[in-house]
């Protein structure tokens, strides 16, 4: 028996339906448009079969009025949302950034959490940078609150963390804030 023949016959045998599904999965995970050539190489299939699978896939997405579409971009195939729904997509994406804090806000929050009650000039001194917009963000998101004025020149407002801060970070009270010592045992 000829070994080479055996190797050739080892080519994966997939049903057309399976090939369509695999092509869909690869287009989905790819981080840029994926070309017919690359798909054919990875899957060891003829380009014609790949082309047929993509066409099949496109008509499936069309046929069921999917919210997604397969487009040819820069010589490759890519999955994206349909233009009709851009308004909703944009609306959703706009709600999302609020979920995370920017680095500046996080920094400011850390200073306020560990140094409270603390004034704006004091935060400036520690961070070395104006924190006005970060403080506004934190106030808007109710993570910090004003804690009266400091008895000093100009009587500046002092800030501290709020009840919402405790809730969001899963803390019962401020003494539960982790300190370096808590993690030292683990790091060694």
């Amino acid at each position, binding site marked *: 028996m000829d070994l080479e023949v055996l190797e050739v016959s080892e080519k994966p045998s997939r049903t057309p339906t399976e090939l369509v599904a695999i092509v869909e*999965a690869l287009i*989905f*995970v*790819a*981080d*840029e448009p994926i070309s017919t050539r690359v798909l054919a190489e990875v899957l060891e299939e003829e380009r014609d079969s790949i082309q047929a699978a993509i066409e099949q896939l496109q008509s499936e997405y069309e046929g069921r009025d999917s919210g997604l579409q397969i487009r040819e971009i820069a010589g490759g195939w890519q*999955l*994206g949302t349909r233009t009709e729904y851009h308004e909703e*997509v944009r609306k959703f*994406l706009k709600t999302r*950034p609020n979920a*995370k*804090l*920017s*680095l*500046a806000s*996080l*920094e400011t*929050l*850390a200073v306020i*959490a*560990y140094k409270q009650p603390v004034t704006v000039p004091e935060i400036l001194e520690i*961070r*070395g*940078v104006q924190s006005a917009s970060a403080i506004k963000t934190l106030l808007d998101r109710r993570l910090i609150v004003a804690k009266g004025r400091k008895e000093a020149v100009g009587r500046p407002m002092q800030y501290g963390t709020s009840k919402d801060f405790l809730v969001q*970070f899963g803390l019962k009270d401020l003494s539960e804030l*982790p300190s*370096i010592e808590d*993690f030292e045992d683990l*790091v060694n």
Partner: protein
Amino acid sequence: MPLTETILTEKDEQFSFDFHKETAEIMSGGTDELKIKLGEFAGPLDLLLYLIRQEQADIFDIPIARITEKYLEYIRLMKRLDIAVAADFLVMAATLIEIKSKMLLPRDPALAADDEEMEDPRQELVDRLLEYEKFKSAAGMLHERSTIEAAIFPRGPIESDENNAEIDASVFDLLTVFQKIVARHVDEVKMEIQREEISLADMIKNLKARIFEFGEVNLLEFFEEMHSRRELVTAFIAVLEIVRAETVKLLQNKTFGDIILRKV
């Protein structure tokens, strides 16, 4: 001072486990295979369960003398194979020997008749083994689940993923990094000599040039290069400025890991 654990048995036989000098008897057998097996035990309870099963013993009626002997043999073998024997394994050895000697004590007939429920010296150990075994099985279940999950992939990155340069790190990560850096420079600050300080504008310019040239900059390494606390603070502000204004991302691969500044 050598760390030594000495255990006396009823026969005055002495097992001495010296972490540095222990030379126990050689056990025969295919050592390579055993080495792998020994390395797989997740702790003394795991080893104990293995021995009980190997001896085909009943967990509710552990033949304590035989199991203790086997256990000590394994510990000797581990030492012989240069596998570090953790203190927890030695604590268990002591527990086993203690139970074994209690079992050998003649029961007070008067007490035994009075109190039907005289505690079996093995009871506490059996309870611990049963409790532990549940979690061992749960660990197996988690392993299976993660294997299945590893076969499912999320979509590749798309444009909208990157429309805000945010850092995926907790308050603690940030604090740890900054404290680490500041602490490292405390000594240097003491000897700080008046020198020409680099301005914030220059610092930003330098950092930008570096990111542009290399694609990414390791923050810890960058901070390491600073000569004074003041320069360090300037560098830190420069990083914050660049992250805010430029198409630069802060990446951290693991908690407490190095933070990388990368061009988007």
